[in-house]
């Protein structure tokens, strides 16, 4: 089970090109693009409210809404201050909106790293020429490069939007937040793409891979999220996937950011390790 950097580079570059023409790649691009445009248009529509939040001077009506949000989301005053005053609120809101939906889009983009090639046996043209580990990791890196490209574009759009609308934060902070926004979304994508790599090699079918990945996402959300409302102990199941930590990546305390960042790497290592192990053991 050897790893060859040249093979990884070749496979990643090839996968990147393929994704810009493939169904899942185009679908993810379309979803993210439409969702991003919608989120940016909404942020622009409510620019004055966000600027009020950033200044801390809310109207009576806005204060009431924020109070309701704090109560519903169980947020404290310090958190809200970090959310809207220490960061550019435009970047923060865009991050929260994109981070909410991006797992599904990421999983769509990443659902067919090896699945079609296993079901159609096309992988057999490559197996005599490289190792299974190279195939799994190379395609993972290619998918990551593809998704990173889209996220960087999204980050640039979010930063430009914030720069043009934010009246209370300097350009340096907005750009810094924009970079952080992009890096946080990238970190969140690492384990999700790895999860889909695992689903693909386990099922060997793009449809089953999508079903397994999205099923896991929804299943964990139902069990940990909804189940957590019924019984606190069930909340632990939501940590089977990295989703509960996603907002910490950008708007948590420094300690929370660090823990969430390390956790993303650990999730990635586990999912990718499992994918490589299954690919090594199974018939292809």
């Amino acid at each position: 089970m050897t790893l060859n950097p040249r093979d990884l580079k070749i496979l990643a570059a090839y996968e990147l090109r393929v994704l810009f023409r493939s169904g899942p790649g185009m679908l993810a691009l379309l979803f993210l693009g439409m969702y991003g445009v919608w989120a940016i248009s909404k942020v622009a529509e409510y620019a004055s409210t966000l600027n009020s939040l950033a200044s801390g001077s809310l109207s009576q009506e806005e204060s009431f809404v924020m109070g309701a949000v704090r109560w519903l989301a169980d947020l404290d005053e310090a958190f809200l201050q970090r959310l809207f005053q220490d960061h550019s609120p435009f970047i923060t809101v865009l991050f929260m909106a994109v981070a909410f939906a991006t797992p599904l889009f990421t999983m769509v983009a990443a659902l067919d790293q090896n699945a079609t090639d296993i079901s159609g046996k096309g992988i057999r043209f490559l197996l005599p020429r490289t190792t299974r580990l190279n195939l799994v990791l190379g395609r993972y890196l290619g998918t990551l490069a593809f998704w990173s490209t889209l996220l960087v574009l999204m980050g640039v759009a979010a930063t430009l939007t914030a720069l043009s609308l934010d009246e209370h934060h300097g350009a340096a902070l907005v750009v810094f937040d924009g970079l952080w926004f992009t890096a946080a979304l990238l970190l969140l994508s690492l384990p999700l793409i790895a999860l889909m790599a695992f689903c693909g090699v386990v099922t060997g079918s793009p449809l089953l891979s999508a079903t397994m990945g999205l099923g896991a996402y929804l299943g964990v959300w139902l069990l940990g999220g909804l189940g957590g409302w019924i019984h606190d102990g069930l909340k632990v199941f939501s940590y089977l996937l990295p989703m509960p930590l996603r907002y910490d990546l950008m708007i948590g305390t420094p300690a929370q950011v660090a823990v969430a960042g390390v956790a993303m790497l650990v999730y990635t290592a586990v999912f990718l390790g499992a994918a490589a192990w299954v690919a090594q053991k199974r018939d292809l």
Partner: protein
Amino acid sequence: MRASSEGAVVLEGVHKRFGAVQALAGVDLAIPQGSCFGLVGPNGAGKTTLFSIISGFLRPSAGRVRVLGHPHGAEDLRGRLAVLPQDASWRKGIPLGRQMALCARLQGFSSADAPREVLRVLALTGMADCAGRHPDKLSHGMAKRVAIAQALIGDPAVVLLDEPISGLDPAQARAIRLLIQGESGKRTFLISSHDMPDIEALCSHVAIIKAGRIVEQRRMDELTRREAVVVFTLAEVPSEALAAPFRALAYVSAAEIRPVERKLQLTVRVDQKGIDEAAAEFIKLLMEHKATFVGLQKGTSLEDAVLKAT
């Protein structure tokens, strides 16, 4: 039968189980370097499973596989093992040339040399104009020839071909046979096929698999000439007495005329004499009796040997 530790491909005690089904039950096999090795057997005997294990697609449940002395995935095997897999599909929506260039790149070709190498091997199989085509635009025969072409990328020492001729029209089949014959000796070939005449014509060695076990593994001439018989396929119905002069020869133990698949065959069993020499004398005898023949076979056919073994 224990496989030698030398050979281009060596299998020792290979088992493969799919759930309750024992597909291979202790296969020992040694494919000599530079040979053209045929793998034959009835449907369900384990031929495709064995081929897939040698190719590294399937993992054996037990046992050991070595190609050129290395396990699958070894860096030393890079570019030295090539496979024509059966029923493998290229990715849709990507031109074949680009997909084959990926294969060439993974075999060590530079990004500049890979497209040239792809065109070279496509030309070998008469498909040079297909590099820009998409996989779903090819007929079955064309797809087969492209798949054979990818197995010839670079300079592989071992080439594994699963049913290389099936699905090809006669002209294409002949072209592929000639291609394999031309490459034989330069590299080791393993050909898995149901087509006995092709295997017999192409291969220097053969293994017969039955119920997951190798029941024969020999040089082709040892297998087909194990029985000293000369078989003539007759052009017309002979006189009933035609077999008699053959039986009268001292070195002939039996001679009979019988219909085989809508043809009449004269089978003469030879004792204490080389069959080449005996065959020459039999031809003279047939001419003396004005009997014409359209086919001559010295020894048994591979098909007969396989039928007997399985």
